[in-house]
């Protein structure tokens, strides 16, 4: 019984690991942006708490649609918050006029275009969409 149980867990974790590999997402900035960025700083930028890059430029955080796999993974792994927790957080910020959540775009290409054309922008996309117009600063 126990053996079967452990085998099952092993198989499930393999499957989870596999889906994770296939669904890898990345945080990207403009190739010209040489700011220091770690997971904690990136989280703060997407929560509106950090408003400037270490190079002094203003931060404009953007993302694909809330319901997409990339955004969901980002919420869970990098921000460590559920959608409703994030909404509760943003409702407080929005309605006291202190900020706005990251603007959402329809596709990875649109996010990539914004990042490639503007040094202030930091975005998240699926790892598969990465090309040399953008620089990857975090994988998750």
């Amino acid at each position: 019984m126990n053996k079967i149980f452990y085998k099952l867990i092993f198989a499930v974790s393999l499957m989870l690991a596999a889906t994770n590999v296939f669904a890898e997402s990345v945080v990207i900035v403009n190739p010209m942006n040489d700011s220091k960025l770690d997971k904690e700083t990136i989280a703060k930028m997407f929560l509106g708490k950090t408003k400037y890059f270490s190079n002094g430029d203003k931060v404009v955080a953007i993302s694909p649609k809330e319901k997409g796999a990339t955004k969901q993974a980002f919420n869970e792994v990098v921000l460590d918050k559920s959608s409703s927790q994030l909404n509760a957080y943003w409702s407080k910020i929005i309605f006291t006029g202190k900020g706005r959540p990251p603007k959402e775009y329809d596709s990875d290409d649109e996010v990539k275009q914004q990042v490639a054309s503007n040094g202030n922008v930091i975005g998240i996309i699926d790892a598969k969409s990465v090309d040399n117009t953008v620089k990857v600063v975090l994988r998750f």
Partner: protein
Amino acid sequence: MKLKYLLPAVALFATQANAEVNINGFATIAGGFTSDETETLYQYGEDLNFDNDSLFGVQLSSDLDEDLNFTAQLISRGRDEWATDVEWAYMSYQANENVRFQFGKQRTPYFMYTEFFDVGFAYHWIAPPAGVYDLPLGTVTGLNTILSGSTGSVEHTFEILFGQENADAFLDGQNLESEIKDLFLFSWTVNYDWLMLRASQTTADITLEVTDLDPLLAGWRQTPFASVADALEFTEDEATFTEFGMRIELGDFQLIAEVTEFESDDNFTGDQESYFVSAAYRIDTVTLHLTYGADETDNDFSALAGVPAGVDPGLDALLAASNLTLQSRFEDATYTTVGFRWDFNPAAALKVEYTDLTDDQFGQDASLLRFAVTTFF
């Protein structure tokens, strides 16, 4: 401020044809009733009432440039027969990473939840504890300077607000006129990972026009004891609001506590001290919460001390009415609220809560069941 003042705000948006206007909104529809016909609590009675805590708000905001923003927020409340009021209308300027200015009409951040008191989606209760948050005044027009910065992993925020306003006030379930002059607010918030601490103090010269009190005041003014009228009325009295707040957030567990004090120069309202402690635990989409709080109001009868009793029936009647008015403000109550919030959708939640209040002053114990749906977009 009523709707007519919105027109200039709309005009401002219209002239900024290129600027993008963001529209957001929130709504809470709440109902409640007390367990017995003799009981009333937070304006609820035995009959189901949907007016007291139901409201909706719409916010327009526009970035005029990268650092300059205009925000306006309108709220319609069930308790005001859904009349629409402008709650916020201000320009903000982010001077740099550490300095922000907000100029215009804004919520006065007396306590931890006052700024987003109406945004039910932002907290676990149907409404933040009434003992602390049943303030007669909500907004002020002026300049708020917000300074923020961090030392290591500790973030500090200071707010310095100057303002004045002639506005509607809400006291004991009644709308009345008010005037706030020379308001000065200072707050200091410290954020460290799982811990938030806040301290604030507000002083202002406040006038509350309580028309129910006018016959009594007029009566005193016809006697040699006109000074009693001055001592009872709430006219240009200096008032002080003091607060200490704390929030601990560890994973799915939250602990919130706040202590507040309201003091004002001689008038009928008395000095109030309140506190509450609230614990909340999140299990997936459901948050369970438990709150305990206490409210105490003391009143000062010294204004009546110099009036001789038993000399004149007219004076005696005025004394009796004044004593009653002052006594009615006394408060010594504790309450427990237990409830849950269920986030059945990422942008909508159902809340149910039960409050049991013990009134050690007048013995008017009461229990109240409330339920609400709250959303934002």
